[in-house]
């Protein structure tokens, strides 16, 4: 049988050959929870009546979404997580470590061919490392924590081929926003995405994480890339486990094949209040903004801060704008400091937050006032997402956000092409 990457990874973890549409119980290589989902994981786990995790070394919890805690309710959840971690001797990444999805790909717990579940919808990020990773709810996570397994419906796969050389000022974020516009927020519901094409081949891992991360914004179960040399080098530098690269068979069955030529693509902006409400920057340029945020599991990596620093070097953030920088992890923060990016950004007027999710989920670190508009590198712009239903959120690349912060309005980063080459 000819198989897609998703079919192969699930087959390998079920111990039998599977095709799209089958349902199977699979062994899970790693699972995780964060502070928005872990109190329910703990509750469900305790209800199951299992005395201990199936394998505590294949589980981790992360305090990232609302860290450090802004209120007593959240502090109570954080405390509960710490005590559960001590009781069952698994790793917990506490305040200051960073965002779960960045730490998962940095810390070497994963390798190509793995099957990973996370109680966070953006768990699909590790698809960039040739991993089948997907978001689930807390009870599903508790089931895996207790048994090492879960049930899966094998998804159909849509192949996405991206070709063409990106212009200076245009990034992986713009590519994925363009794809989401076309696919819509439900275009890949229940399905796997397989990304390929010469644009994707040229992208760094950082750019591929951005694309894999936003797969769920089309409803996808996962968004997987092949393991090329860049992926294998990344894994070898970090992971103790040997990569089990998985490639799709030449005659694998795809439910659809989508091709995108991005050689003349403009920077893209997702407008309020839906992620698939995307327009080229030319159409929204000039919209005044009050807040600009560069960070999150989508675009809070060193490369993203480097782009922001190139644009903001010897410039000032517009007096009407608060620019917030959220390094995705401690390692990103340290690298950005060492390379001088933090220096540039702070001198330009940015407020640098501790490693974590920042204001993305609207619990702290930059909640918007009524009528305010934010431009952010995050992955969601739902009404109320940043803490106020009477505010508006635009999504864009770090370059677009950085130059908008200077101008005080949504702006085209290609004006800074010389700095970005």
């Amino acid at each position, binding site marked *: 049988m000819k198989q897609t990457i998703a079919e192969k990874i699930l087959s390998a973890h079920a111990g039998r050959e599977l095709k799209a549409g089958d349902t199977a119980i699979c062994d899970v290589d790693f699972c995780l929870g964060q502070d928005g*989902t872990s109190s329910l994981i703990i509750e469900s786990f305790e209800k199951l009546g299992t005395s201990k995790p199936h394998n505590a070394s294949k589980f981790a919890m992360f305090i990232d979404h609302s860290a450090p805690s802004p*209120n007593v309710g959240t502090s109570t959840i954080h405390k509960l997580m710490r005590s559960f971690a001590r009781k069952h001797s698994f790793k917990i990444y506490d305040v200051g470590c960073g965002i779960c999805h960045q730490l998962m790909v940095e810390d070497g717990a994963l390798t190509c061919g793995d099957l990973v579940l996370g109680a966070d919808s953006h768990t699909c990020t590790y698809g960039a490392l040739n991993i089948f990773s997907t*978001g689930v*709810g807390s009870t*599903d996570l508790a089931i895996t924590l207790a048994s090492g397994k879960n049930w899966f419906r094998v998804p159909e796969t849509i192949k996405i081929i991206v070709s063409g050389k990106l212009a200076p000022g245009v990034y992986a974020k713009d590519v994925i926003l363009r794809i989401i516009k076309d696919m819509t927020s439900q275009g890949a519901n229940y399905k796997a995405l397989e990304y390929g094409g010469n644009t994707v081949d040229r992208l760094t891992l950082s750019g591929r994480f951005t694309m894999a991360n936003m797969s*769920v914004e089309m409803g996808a179960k996962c968004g997987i890339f092949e393991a090329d040399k860049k992926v294998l080098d990344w894994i070898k530098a970090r992971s103790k486990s040997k990569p089990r690269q998985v490639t799709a068979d030449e005659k694998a069955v795809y439910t659809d094949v989508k091709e995108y030529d991005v050689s003349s693509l403009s920077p893209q902006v997702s407008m309020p209040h839906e992620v698939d409400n995307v327009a080229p920057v030319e159409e929204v340029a000039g919209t005044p903004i009050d807040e600009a945020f560069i960070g999150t599991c989508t675009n809070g990596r060193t490369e993203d801060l480097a782009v922001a620093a190139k644009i903001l070097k010897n410039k000032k953030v517009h007096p009407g704008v608060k620019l917030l920088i959220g390094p995705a992890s401690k390692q990103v923060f340290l690298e950005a400091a060492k390379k001088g990016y933090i220096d540039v950004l702070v001198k330009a007027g940015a407020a640098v937050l501790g490693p974590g999710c920042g204001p993305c989920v609207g619990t702290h670190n930059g909640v918007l006032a009524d009528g305010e508009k934010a431009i952010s590198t995050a992955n969601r712009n739902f009404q109320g*997402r940043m803490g106020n239903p009477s505010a508006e959120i635009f999504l864009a690349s770090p370059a677009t956000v950085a130059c908008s912060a200077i101008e005080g309005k949504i702006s085209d980063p290609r004006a800074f092409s010389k700095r970005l080459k």
Partner: protein
Amino acid sequence: MKNMAHRLLKIRNNVNTDYIISGRYKFRIRDPKELAKHLFEDIEKDFIKKLKKGDFLVSGENFGCGSSREQAPQALKAAGIAAVVAKSFARIFYRNALNLGLCLVECNTNYIDDGDELELDLGANVLKNKSKGLNITLKPVSPLAQMVLAEGGMIEYFKKHGGLIGGA
């Protein structure tokens, strides 16, 4: 089950889990009944006041998309909703609802208006719109989902069978 249909008036499709229950609340409120008081607050503040125990929530495509928060189906269940009726569900929400034993029904919802009287007959696989005299056929539920629902959710299923069973 025979009760009233409620539709969100502004958003027909892609009702995401942030809209069901805002991130602001999921971090600080753990009691599902307290969470339920904030259902749909960001998009239709008074919607929750209309809901009575046993009523149906009716929506369009891709209900429950976005965040994996299980607080979304948890709060809907705590509000006493008999079933969520939609054209389709996002996959994480679907699994979460199933795991909690919240009934989800997939069917054509074009002919259900806010305030219609509905009667759900899962045995006959039909949703009756009493107000319009229509019988709407439901999309069949997978055997695994039926088993889990019959036990009242995944925790009960897991405990009864001592784990996940069979080749699924």
